[in-house]
């Protein structure tokens, strides 16, 4: 399908696919609940774009083994690697390593190599990427920021890990900075003017209670973490602001991925609404795993002669049930189209088999683009 934008007419021809997003945006971020085929959708979109001659890099996070095989990225790391997509040299992939990305940031903003290595060795720091919710997503955005000026690519497609909380990733930079700016620990290190001393005193009391519960080692290590991090918050804050600016850029669009089940659609809808509420551009909606439409009015006159009447009835009921399922799936998804307008919806039929090679991704791409 080709989209020829005219000056005054809306581009109706492309309303049903994501083609113009792939053509006109520089960054596409795929978000949505777990188990809906987000990683496959990101990979398929990237393969489709590359086949259109757009130089594309897909940032994936923890792809299922089979998908990694399909992309041929089993052993790739935190840097983009060229993928052979039907001989076109336009596809790159990178598998996000959130810990390594964070380590790179620490090394970048530390004032000295000693400061960096002290932080990297601290237990609080080592557990930060696993425990602070949203940090994985935030590191995906960080990686994106790092790569978005790379002259090898025209388009970045970014997968995000499933979140239990839609706000996690939007909130992660703020939470990270809040964490680093922790008032209690600051007060203990630097009590400040006399008027604040009682608070500092109370803070020490809290830490004493915590020491009793978890042991003083842990508390000591937490204090050491904040001492080591001293002076780096500003660098992190500025970096986080630049990342946010990129996310709000006109050339960046979010695509919400869902599947046509009630709970999943609700989750996706609240995700999309929150994104829009934060001023991000939600431009697309992919709904995977739809039941195909079988009700075409095609009849086979032979059937009554080869099947018993009971079997004929079983087949008719099966057709009716599939049709009811298809309709209720559509109803589940259609209501959020109005909610997330002008984001367009693309329904992808249930795949006949799991994605296992690049042809499967190209096939999925055809229903997306």
């Amino acid at each position, binding site marked *: 399908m080709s989209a020829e934008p005219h000056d005054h007419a809306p581009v109706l021809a492309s309303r049903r696919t994501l083609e113009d997003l792939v053509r006109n945006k520089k960054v596409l971020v795929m978000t949505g609940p777990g188990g809906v085929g987000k990683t496959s959708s990101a990979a398929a979109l990237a393969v489709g774009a590359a086949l259109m001659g757009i130089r594309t890099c897909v940032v994936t996070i923890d792809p299922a083994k089979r998908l990694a095989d399909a992309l041929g990225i089993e052993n790739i790391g935190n840097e983009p690697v060229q993928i052979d997509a039907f001989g076109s040299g336009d596809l790159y992939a990178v598998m996000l390593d959130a810990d390594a990305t964070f380590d790179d940031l620490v090394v970048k903003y530390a004032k000295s190599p000693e400061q960096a290595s002290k932080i990297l060795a601290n237990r609080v720091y080592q557990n930060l990427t696993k425990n602070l919710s949203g940090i994985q997503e935030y590191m995906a955005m960080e990686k994106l920021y790092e790569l978005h000026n790379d002259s090898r690519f025209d388009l970045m497609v970014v997968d995000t890990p499933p979140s239990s909380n839609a706000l996690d990733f939007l909130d992660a930079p703020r939470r990270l900075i809040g964490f680093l700016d922790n008032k209690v620990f600051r007060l203990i290190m630097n009590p400040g003017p006399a008027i604040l001393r009682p608070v500092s005193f109370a803070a020490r009391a809290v830490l004493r209670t915590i020491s*009793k519960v*978890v042991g003083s080692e842990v508390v000591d290590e937490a204090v050491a973490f904040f001492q080591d991090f001293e002076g780096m918050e500003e660098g992190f804050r500025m970096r986080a602001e630049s990342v946010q600016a990129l996310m709000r850029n006109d050339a960046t669009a979010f695509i919400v991925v869902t599947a046509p089940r009630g709970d999943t659609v609700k989750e996706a809808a609240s995700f999309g609404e929150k994104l829009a509420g934060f001023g991000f551009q939600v431009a697309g909606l992919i709904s995977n795993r739809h039941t195909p439409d*079988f009700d075409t009015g095609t009849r086979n006159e032979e059937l009554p002669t080869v099947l018993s009447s*009971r079997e004929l009835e079983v087949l008719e009921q099966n057709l009716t049930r599939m049709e009811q399922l298809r309709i209720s799936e559509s*109803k589940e998804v259609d209501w959020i189209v109005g909610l997330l307008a002008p984001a367009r919806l693309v329904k992808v039929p249930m795949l006949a088999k799991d994605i296992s090679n690049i042809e499967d991704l190209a096939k999925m791409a055809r229903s997306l683009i």
Partner: protein
Amino acid sequence: MRETIESTTVLLVAGKGGVGKSTVSVATAIAAAQLGRRTAIIELSPSPVVEALSASIANGDAVLGSSVEKLSIIHLRPEEVLVEYLEDHGMAVLGRRLISTGVVSVIATAIPGIRELLVLAKTKQMERSGDFDTIILDAPASGHLVTFLSSPKGLADIASVGLLRSQAEEVTALLGDPSRSKVVMVTLAEETPVSETIETVAKIAQLKTVAIGKVVINGLIQRPDISSQSAELLASLTSSSDEVNAYNYVSSRATMQSQSVAVLAHALSEITSIELPFLFTTALTTNEASTLARYLIDPSIRLGMPDVG
């Protein structure tokens, strides 16, 4: 599933996102209540199907019958549990305020697994109280499950001096006793969830912290019931028809699913599994959960098939 429910108090329901973990948790809770057991379901993050059950309990939904009196829903938020725990151990009111400014998140980060430990400690406390015959924990998605289950033992090492040590030991004892607790793994009959299930089960087996009670294979589509000769005849038809296309689609999905089931059965030969039917619906309400509950109690009933012949 009946013997799993009746032989164990705490069931940790686990699985990857999107496989229907909360649905199976709710169905299992309803099944336990219908077996006359005082049942609690512990929910760690908001879930629509648990909320639907909550509404059904409040409204005395007829589908639950008399089992409604046996069902409780407990919402647990790990951060709150930690604050509560600290308060019980001498932290004053000002402490609570300081905690809300983030000390807890710093400490929780310093000790990975502390949130999980506290959830399990609270579960153990409920189990010891004797108020419940069945406690169902709707556990986090399986990526976190191994952390979740390995936390108490790891913690016993870390929290070697603090008050948490005794908690860690008691939770380890709870998990180590199959009459007190077991894991129920939920999966779909598809390649990715099946391979993740096999991986998770292997990791849990290696950790030896807890027994796997059952693997629940959710959403199995049933092949329309026609004779094999008729199926062959359909395959040989030259002109197409809507009924035949729909049949072929369901039939090929059923074939794919049974291949995944076979892979699972081969890899997990020591663990029994139970298959739940696909219900041809997009929204799971308490009604559907009750249907699945009946099936969990008695798998011989036929569900969701057209009632013909």
